[in-house]
């Protein structure tokens, strides 16, 4: 059974108020939710409360889950909005300042020529190569890693807030995100080809 199918089954059982399913669902996703909660700069007690609240909301909302996204994406939306709602400006600032300092321009120049775009089938294929994705994320240039990190794991949800933090215009946040994703896709593609050719 695929991971997605397993989550669908657990959420369907949670919708029927199956506590055993809730326990399994928590065990599958607690690390992801916990990482986001602690990375937000909350203290241990507050983070634990936020994790509990996230899964409680998932429990209550399970009957409405329609399966358009993965369960992890759905949970990410819940926990990130809880973080944004709950932490105050001081905590946000701590979380942001705890991150690596913005890179110098020469550290990771933004390429003039964008990496190629990919069709849906190719992207779905790349998405399966988890090991390559991990390796390529580790190799991302600082500017690209920074924008993806802020947009995926940061305490700010709005792009204009991310733009303010980076000190760049809103359009640059979007274009830098797009470039980061494309260069990541190109790296993952090379990684897959390398594996297939045994290199």
């Amino acid at each position, binding site marked *: 059974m695929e991971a997605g199918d397993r989550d669908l*089954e657990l*959420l*369907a*059982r949670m*919708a*029927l108020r199956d*506590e055993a*399913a*809730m*326990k399994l669902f*928590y065990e599958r996703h*607690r*690390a*992801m939710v916990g*990482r*986001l*909660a*602690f*990375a937000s700069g909350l203290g*241990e007690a507050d983070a634990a409360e936020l*994790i*509990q609240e996230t*899964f*409680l909301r998932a*429990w*209550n909302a399970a009957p*409405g*889950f*329609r*399966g*358009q996204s*993965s369960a*992890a*994406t759905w*949970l*990410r*939306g*819940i*926990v*990130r909005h809880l973080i944004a709602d709950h932490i105050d400006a001081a905590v946000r600032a701590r979380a942001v300042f705890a991150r690596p300092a913005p890179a110098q321009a020469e550290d990771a120049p933004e390429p003039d020529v964008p990496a190629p775009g*990919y069709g*849906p*089938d190719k*992207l*779905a294929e790349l*998405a399966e190569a*988890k090991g390559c*994705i991990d390796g390529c*994320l*580790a190799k991302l240039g600082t500017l690209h890693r920074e924008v993806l*990190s802020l*947009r*995926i*794991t940061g305490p700010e949800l709005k*792009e204009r807030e991310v733009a303010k933090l980076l000190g760049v215009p809103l359009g640059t946040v*979007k274009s830098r*995100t*797009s470039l980061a*994703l494309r260069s*990541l896709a190109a790296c993952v593609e090379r990684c897959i080809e390398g594996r297939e050719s045994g290199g």
Partner: protein
Amino acid sequence: MADAEFEDLLFAYAAGSLDAAARARVEAALDADPELRRRLRWYEAVCDGMVARLPQPPSLPSPDVIVAAARAARRNAPRGFFAWLAGPALRPAAALAALLIVAQAAIIAGLVGERAAQEPVRALTPGAQSADGAVVFVVAFDPQATEADIRALLLKAGGTIIDGPRQLGDYRISVPANRADYAKSLFEESGIAEYVRAEEAAK
């Protein structure tokens, strides 16, 4: 909407940063376009990978604490048929019912009104494809199938029960037209559906 803009929205959806209105817009687009779902898988994989690179949490609540909280919430929640009726699962059915009532009212008004000489009102028929682009399947489930099995199958197929169980124990299930073939094969291969057919339009 420009492609680049929508791609950014899809990425933000995977990152969990969209507000409810933007999320609903993306989900409507995902319902209408299976290709977008495949693109979403890439963004989800990137987001999963970025989160996995964050430091491990120093401690996490035990599963028992989480289950106890859920149990307490359950004790305080409304119960039974009326709670289910008011729940989100039936919202599409409620919207369809409201639409049918309006359509029926329009038909009746047309029949009894003073404009009988005009072109008659044509009733909506339970067709293979309705005006909103949904396809209706008639499905009979194995009596041994659990409610959880059926719910999981409907989630995967993107289907909503709009009627049933009827006298013969079957259900009418509405599926977005662009997912009809996929849903049909899912129903047929599920092992819990004894009978599957697309409902034909009344002539």
